[in-house]
């Protein structure tokens, strides 16, 4: 089984590697790119802890091979934070609204919500709680009961425009 050379733009910088075709994107991000925010939670495409942006859309990085992302852009939670460590609006909203407890699911939740929040900020449109809950319906959190997560996303839409 031949290895493939890939170059993936991860958080704005190219990351290259010769990988087995069977390597999942989440493992590339963790083992090759050295990032810890994409988590391997359920291994069955259910929990969403591995959610990242592929180009600009949220996907589950445990359900796509690294070779498929060759030549494309991937953004992880690390890519939302400014170089000076300044948090993005959405990250800050999670912090302020206490939208996390143990934090395991948080990177995935934020990356799943990010394109949704951005679309609403760009359109200058509101999102009701049902729409917010639908947007993060592919992400499981076992601590918060989601109430503060929903509040954080709602606040980010208000604060981000």
């Amino acid at each position: 089984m031949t290895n493939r050379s890939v170059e993936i733009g991860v958080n704005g910088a190219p990351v290259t590697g010769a990988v087995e075709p069977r390597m999942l994107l989440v493992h590339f991000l963790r083992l090759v790119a050295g990032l810890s925010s994409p988590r391997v939670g359920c291994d069955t495409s259910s929990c969403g802890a591995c959610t990242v942006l592929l180009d600009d859309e949220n996907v589950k990085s445990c359900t796509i091979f690294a070779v498929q992302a060759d030549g494309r852009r991937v953004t992880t939670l690390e890519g939302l934070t400014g170089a000076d460590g300044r948090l993005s609006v959405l990250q800050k909203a999670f912090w302020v609204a206490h939208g996390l407890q143990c934090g395991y699911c948080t990177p995935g939740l934020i990356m799943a919500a990010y394109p949704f929040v951005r679309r609403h900020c760009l359109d200058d449109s509101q999102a009701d709680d049902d729409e917010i809950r639908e947007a993060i319906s592919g992400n499981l959190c076992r601590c918060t009961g989601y109430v503060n997560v929903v509040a954080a996303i709602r606040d980010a839409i208000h604060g981000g425009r």
Partner: protein
Amino acid sequence: MCGVAVYPAAFDYLDPTSVPEAIDFLQSHEGEDVKVLAGGQSLIPLMRLRFARPSYLVDLNRIRALRSLNLEGGWLQIGALVRESELERSREVRQRFEILYETTRVIADPSVRNLATVGGNLAHGDPANDHPATMMALDASVVADGPQGERVIPVRQFFLGLFETALEPAEILTEIRIPSVPPDTGLAYRKLKRQVGDFAIVGVAARLSLTSGIVSDAHLVYTNVGATPQRIESAAQGLVGHQATEEAFWSAGTAAANALELRDDIRGSSLYRHRVVRALTTRALCAARERASDGGDR
């Protein structure tokens, strides 16, 4: 690279940039375990669990020609690489085919729908998938391209058995074609599931045509209650000639529940499913009636 934490069995990977290139590869490897990858949202989980361990994976994602989503002359053409989320966000599609929007919205979750394809939902041949019933109700066709050229297969003849379709080993599903819906006709899809991401306990696609409040044609197709999508013509045709009332719909639902071979499984007993079929059928037909009577093909 490292052999750490990589779950699928090893395979050789091919990412052709044209359909003929992909077909050539499939033809030269007939008899071997080759899988075609589109969205991968069913196949990759199966590979991770090693229920599928193909020797070769032919990834269609670099074939630009398969990305088109066109509405022309009333026909909707969905290329094999069109994602569920594209269908979900297209206002033109929703305006003309509300049932497609409705179906895509109940599939998995938004992150999965950003990769999952409509074509894959059909080609996978899983009776728990939602588009098969909807496409049968819409009387859609798929285009299969292979060594002998293209052929058009009506979706109603596409599903042969559990994970078994009319596609030949060297054929690729390249496109779905959906005819426009006449103004007197409405369609709706209803699905009951335990939670987001779970398969249907039961799903139903209903199609209803009306003339002055009288049913002139009807179709009912069910998800996840057999090895293939189950089209129950006896129950649907029993509506023809009758007033389109909720009582008539309830009777059709009862007839369908009696005609289906409902089983007990982890998602519910056969008795429970019998009741779900009756209720969902009634709701789907009521929604279809609304869409038929307001003169649109939604």
